[in-house]
């Protein structure tokens, strides 16, 4: 057979095999068979030099053209097959994305602590410091320095746990205010979070509970400052619409003394059957007032020069309201079903 025809034949055969190849390995075999060192086409190319000059051009051109075509087909088919194979591999690698990931389990923060952190952060933003003190406290710091001397009827307001003569589990965090005032000069702006204890146990009282108290002593502090501060704090913790209301009250360490109510952030007072405020429209948040001059004098501050306000709130109760928790006792049982919700 004449070389050009043979070349044409080889080219057609090669192209057909390329098209039929099912894998890159098959293609490699095709390449070796038609373009390899000992392939017929290669042999033809090698033999060109020995051809008569008039044939060289024709055979050389046909051979190069043919091998070029085959190479081209090989390369494009290789690319095709490689792509298909890559795709296939990815397909095989597919996972069930609905299976869970590697667990990085989330723990939780106690709801009361969450409220305490929020309240503390709010006051830190206003320039308050945070003060702490012991839970086993002396009679003096817990009562007498707060204008509740022995025999004062107000001692009966707080059922006290006694540890030793003159030693109690603190009934409020107010002794921290005393300790701080005794060690610092005014102006003074502090919040005091901590655990407190009263001899009381029923569905709405636990013998231990959390408190956050605050104290601001400066020149020209007024009840309006207390009201403004507590209103802003309530909006921070309960949301933008919360309003507050003060009612008269009595504490031996403040004069005037007030109770703090926050408007119900759930119903705003519009729902007589509201689960949060029971239709009252207001939620009791704590007590407050202007620091009694007897307390200021006791710590060596001049009550004519300085005035101050103090307040105390129950973060446990605030958390009950904020998260809709019906029972205070849940707070201190370590029940994971409860804790993990926060």
């Amino acid at each position, binding site marked *: 057979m004449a070389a050009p025809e043979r070349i044409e034949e080889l080219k057609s055969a090669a192209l057909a095999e390329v098209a039929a190849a099912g894998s890159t390995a098959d293609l490699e075999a095709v390449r070796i068979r038609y373009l390899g060192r000992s392939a017929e086409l290669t042999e033809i190319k090698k033999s060109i030099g020995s051809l008569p000059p008039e044939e060289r051009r024709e055979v050389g051109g046909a051979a190069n053209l043919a091998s070029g075509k085959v190479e081209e087909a090989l390369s494009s088919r290789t690319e095709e097959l490689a792509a298909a194979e890559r795709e296939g591999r990815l397909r095989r690698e597919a996972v069930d994305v609905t299976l869970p990931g590697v667990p990085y389990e989330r723990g939780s923060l106690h709801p*009361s602590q969450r409220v305490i952190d929020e309240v503390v952060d709010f006051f830190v933003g206003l320039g308050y410091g945070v003060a702490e003190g*012991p839970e086993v406290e002396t009679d003096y710091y817990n009562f007498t320095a707060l204008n509740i001397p022995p025999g004062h009827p107000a001692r009966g307001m707080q059922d006290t746990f006694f540890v030793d003569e003159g*030693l109690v589990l603190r009934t409020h965090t107010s002794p921290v205010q005393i300790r701080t005032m005794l060690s610092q000069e005014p102006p003074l702006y502090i919040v005091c979070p901590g655990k407190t204890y009263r*001899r009381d146990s029923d569905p709405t009282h636990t013998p231990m509970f959390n408190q956050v108290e605050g104290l601001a002593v400066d020149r020209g502090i007024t009840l309006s400052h207390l009201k403004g501060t507590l209103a802003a704090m309530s909006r921070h913790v309960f949301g933008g619409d919360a309003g507050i209301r003060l009612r008269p009250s009595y504490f031996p360490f403040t004069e005037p003394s007030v109770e703090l109510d926050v408007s119900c952030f759930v119903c705003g007072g519009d729902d007589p059957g509201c689960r949060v405020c029971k239709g009252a429209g207001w939620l009791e948040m704590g007590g407050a007032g202007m620091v009694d001059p007897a307390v200021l004098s006791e710590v060596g501050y001049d009550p004519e020069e300085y005035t101050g306000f103090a307040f105390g709130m129950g973060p446990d109760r605030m958390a009950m309201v904020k998260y809709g928790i019906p029972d205070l006792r849940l707070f201190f049982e370590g029940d994971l079903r409860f804790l993990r919700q926060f």
Partner: protein
Amino acid sequence: MRVPLSWLHDYLDFDLSPERLAEVFSLYSQEVDGVERFGVASGEVVVGEVREFGPHPNADKLSVAQVDLGGQVVQVVAGAPNPYPGSRVPVVLPGSTLSDGRKLRKAKLRGLESYGMMMSERELGISDDHEGILLLDDTYEVGRPVDDYFPTGEVVLELDITPNRPDLWGMIGVARELAAILRTDFRLPEPVFGTGGERTREYGLRVEAGELCPRYDLRRVSGLAPGGESPVALRRRLFAAGMRPVGPVVDATNYAMLETGQPIHAFDAEKVRGGIVVRRAWEGEEVELLDGSVRALDGGMLVIADEERALALAGVMGAGEAEVSPGTTDVLVEVATFEGRNVLETSARLGLRTDASGRFERGLDPEAVGYARDRVTQLLQESCGGSPAEDTLSHYPDPAEPSVVSLRLERAELLLGMPVEDDEAADRLKSLGCKVRREDGRLRVTVPTFRGDLTREPDLVEEVGRLIGLDQVPEELPASALPGGLTEPQERVRLLRRLLADLGLSETITYPFGPDRWERDLGFGGGDAPGGPVQVRNPLSAEGRNLRRTLLPGLLDAAARNRSYGVRGGALFEVGRVFDPAPPPEDRREAALQFRMTGEYDAGEEVSGSRLLGVEERGRVGGLLAGTVRPAGWNMPEYRAGFFEAKGLVERLVPGAVFLPPGEAPPFLHPGRSATVLVDGAEAGWVGEVHPEAAERFGLGDWSVAAFELDPALCRPDPVTGFTPLSNVPAVNMDLAVVVGAGVRAGELLEEVSALDTPLLAGVRVFDVYEGAQVPEGRKSVALSFTFRGEETLTDEQVKEEMDRISGRLSEAFGAEVRRS
């Protein structure tokens, strides 16, 4: 304090709904706990006369009556059998509504029409008596509304009176307060009575303990009609105010107390021998009180006695000896003021609180005695037919004087943060019973003796402020410019809490006091054992007696509770205080007590610590891993509580901590699986598996439990120290396996390595520990991976030299057989 609104109408006029009244009282004075209704809420009750009365033909338990309502005879079906023809009864007419919400209609009861209902005392709000229909006497005119005689409905406000306002423990005080709030007139009826009874001074009066009894008045009322019961109008008020009618004499004293706030006691004069003596109890004196209990008294307690024996525990409760009985016709009425603190202490020591002691302990006004004395005299005459003596005996050596307090308006404005008008302030104070004069630009306020709580300027400011209205106070923020923020330790605790939560633990708060079981189950002695815990003297129950010395028992209890709820395990943490006894040395006991009671201590005395406090209180962060913290997943093994799980947490909280096997592990820890945690040589706490027997005792059975407890001050949750320059010189890693005795600890190997002065060694870690085949019995293979880095790329010789030094050292120190890979 329960306040029937009909009673207030004796002293002022008002026209507000009970709900509005409650709100107003809460906003301007005292908290109102509730509003309660009795009797007929709306409608009509008339006096009827029973004409015929007989059994209901269709029902065994019902009766039927024909009742004359004054010109109209109606048929009424009744549930009680006590009326009879001719008896007068209250009949509530159809269309009326009872306080419990029932609405009355003309109705057929078992086939017979009933026009309204004949009423029991309970249905009228007179008492709890529901045995029969209330029978009225002849003074009730047939056909007239019963309300002409006494109110058939009542609304009671329940006030929560603050301890500074004993004046509000009587209806008169509440009425005065309400009048001030409503800015209306208040009137106080003058007691009127005739005299002519036996003379009081036939008895003596001797006050021996004047310091406990500022005033003691005695009046005799004789010729009392024995027996019977108090008039309905009086009884129903007592009932609405929460007291039980006893008999006419006692009812009268109680009624006058509710009205005035002044407790009053009546003695049967015939049983009093010689006269009344107010004295301290004799040591060990025993007295049988009206509640039947026999109390042993001491010299700190005040008794009212006659010449022979105690007749009453002053201000608390009467004794049986001179008790008024139904046959009593002659009484000595005591109206007195006892020192409040003494009454408080006596009632606290005996665990006996009464209506009287609750009032006295707040400190009553001796000036109020006169009015109350006259008022009860009037009542004893009106409702018991008694004849008051003309004379009274009185011990009142130092009459109370009204105090005078100055009020500067600018000071009021400063405290309240709102404008206060001169006239407004004066008017508000006058409405409370003060007299006000203007002097030198300030108000000179004469405070009535019944307001003993108003002694200083800010006390007056409070009164003015609340009566103007706290809603008038504007909202402002103080203009402070102080740097605030958390201190470093506070910030650290917050980071610790967040970190532990992020590591999968749940924050919990547990009670710091627990039962004796805690101590025993942890492996200590009981709560009372020597060296035992700090104890609460008056716990709510024995369950809360011992203060915790570690956070562990609370966490273990919590784990056990969770286990009982069906979980398979969990992870908890708590930040809280623990308490250790630190009793002051014998020679400092006195100083300690002084410090505790007065805050005073000698210069140079150590007070910052626990020395005078007697309790050492420390902050702790504790964690507990229990059972299967996380079950196996499709791609993860289960996460069970164990030593290394807990240790890993500690390593995260305190990077660089050193873990030492404890010399002697606390009894609650597994002795072979626990460690002391050291930070820079200081003991920071412990970590370990809980002793299996302790876990068992806490009800955790077959669960593995691991825990840690650390001093937060030594934790470093965010351990950033500064910048270390980066090196681009490649590091060389070399592994080494050493076979050592099974008892050699990895930490010892690492310590030995780090003791070598090897500047090229950049790090070493243990990556495998193996015991078993190919390793001789009693030995183990520990595989270590070393990282070397120099200032320039290290040569093989340099690295080999280092590795030779290391293996040589380990062979020498531990007889280690070295296999290099």
